[in-house]
């Protein structure tokens, strides 16, 4: 199974810049590109509301550039492909997001993102008068065992935080309240991913890993980090039957719980496959007595053209439902 290295690009060194220019050319009413390469809301949030920032390596589009907008993030600090941005740019992002009452810096847990965020935080505390808090987000059950949750990686399930936290900040919640909600959503979210094929870095053209034609990898990270094991290729139903119980027992999700479901396309899965997979997820959750509030199916955080998906569950309460259903307007996420 060879990987698509054939891509429509210009100079490799210009990928990030041209991609950002392309984004804002398409959605000028939603996002702007600043001179220092930040993606910011076209209409800034009202003064007095908490600003939300996240930095991340690029190459996972629409994450995160597609989720800046009203009811979502205020600023995204995009790094080079698969490379966390440096502290100065994160500091610039924090400043750009401040509307006078402080900024919550969200970090998708990967070593580089965390280190750079910590340095940015130190710089802010030294230098500026901005009230900044940091929240480290993780969800991938394959990257560390139960009991070591803070060592887990941040993957597609962070989407639940983006959406609901974005809505919450828009209501005028305080910095402390925003941070507490982000942690609460994180602590109620669990994700497990699966890859059918590898992907190539658009910069180096290096294929991330090799996977035989009749195997799949469970627990693959969003940069091709190896997962918890390879498995012979299974049917769609058998794949869900293998993955879902692991997710359910990790939190655990119990009968009577109400959840949001995300089936995230890692890149080149067909919607056809995802809908067939969702059918089984729905059946199995019903059997387990777990109620689905809403489901989202689509490419929210990708790894280039990798064929694979992440299944993510988030346990919710009535307040979170309200936030989930609140309007938003990002380049990749409108209405709800």
């Amino acid at each position, binding site marked *: 199974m060879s990987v698509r290295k054939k891509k429509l690009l210009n100079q490799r060194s210009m990928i990030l810049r041209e991609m950002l220019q392309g984004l804002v050319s398409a959605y000028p009413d939603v996002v702007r590109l600043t001179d220092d390469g930040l993606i910011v809301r076209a209409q800034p949030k009202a003064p007095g509301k908490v600003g939300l920032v996240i930095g991340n*390596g690029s190459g996972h589009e629409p994450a995160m550039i597609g989720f800046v907008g009203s009811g979502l993030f205020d600023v995204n600090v995009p*790094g*080079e492909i*698969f*490379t*966390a*941005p*440096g*502290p*100065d*740019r994160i500091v610039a992002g924090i400043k750009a997001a401040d509307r006078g009452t402080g900024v919550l810096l969200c970090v998708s847990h*990967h*070593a*580089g993102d965390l*280190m*750079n965020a*910590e*340095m940015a935080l130190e710089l802010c505390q030294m230098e500026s008068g901005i009230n900044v808090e940091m929240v480290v987000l993780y969800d991938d059950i394959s*990257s560390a065992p139960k009991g070591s949750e803070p060592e887990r990686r941040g993957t597609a399930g962070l989407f639940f935080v983006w959406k609901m936290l974005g809505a919450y900040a828009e209501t005028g919640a305080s910095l402390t309240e925003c941070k507490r909600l982000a942690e609460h959503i994180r602590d109620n979210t669990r994700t497990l991913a699966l890859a059918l094929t590898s992907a190539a*870095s658009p*910069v*180096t053209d*290096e294929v*991330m890993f090799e996977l035989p034609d009749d195997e799949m990898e469970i627990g693959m*990270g969003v*940069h*091709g*980090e*190896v997962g918890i094991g390879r498995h012979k290729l299974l049917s769609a139903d058998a794949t869900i039957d293998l993955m879902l119980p692991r997710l359910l027992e990790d939190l655990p999700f119990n009968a009577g719980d109400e959840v949001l479901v995300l089936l995230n396309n890692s890149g080149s899965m067909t919607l056809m496959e995802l809908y067939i997979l969702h059918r089984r997820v729905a059946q199995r959750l019903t059997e387990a007595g777990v109620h689905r509030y809403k489901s989202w199916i689509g490419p929210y955080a990708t790894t280039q053209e990798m064929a694979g998906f992440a299944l993510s569950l988030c346990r919710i309460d009535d307040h979170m439902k309200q936030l989930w259903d609140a309007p938003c307007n990002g380049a990749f996420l409108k209405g709800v």
Partner: protein
Amino acid sequence: MNGPDFVRLIQAIHTAMEAAQTELNALDSELGDGDHGGALATAFADAAEKAAALTNPTPSTVLAVTAQSLLNRMGGASGALYGTLFLRMSASCKDRTELTLADWQAALQAGLEGVQARGKAAPGDKTLVDALAPAVAAVSTSDTLGGAFAAAAAAAQAGADQTAEMVAKFGRAKFVGERARGHVDAGARSMAVLFAALHRYQEDEDGKT
């Protein structure tokens, strides 16, 4: 070593990183994502340019602009770690116009502490710390800069070589588990390249005088 010396030193490190770029990328490909050499070469190119543009370079300002390039042009975990190393060294010699061996020892010690505080890796975890820590220790084994840097370069390379025996606890290589054995860590090797460049720079300087 004064400010202009440091400008030339950063240029020398840049040259060494350019030369090692392919090798470092290849090492990083084995266990990581294959960008370590390219990232260092780009960042040190930027640093050399910025350092050369300083009007009144001091050791501390040269180290500081280098840190900025590493932090912001390299990015990622290794950018933060390399950047922290240079940032802490810069802070440790803030008021100095010239660095003595004792200053170097203090600066490198501060840098190492910063790297370990930032990255949490200890020796044996198969990271750049496995080259940096023995290099810093070796600087104290001589009383000339030339001798100290020769010892540091040798210790860094020996430390890098030993990473081949280790399983990674940090970085992307962490996720490959036992498969990491037999491969030298890219960051440890790049630290060895850095100390080799420092050593060669000092040899050249000593040759001139």
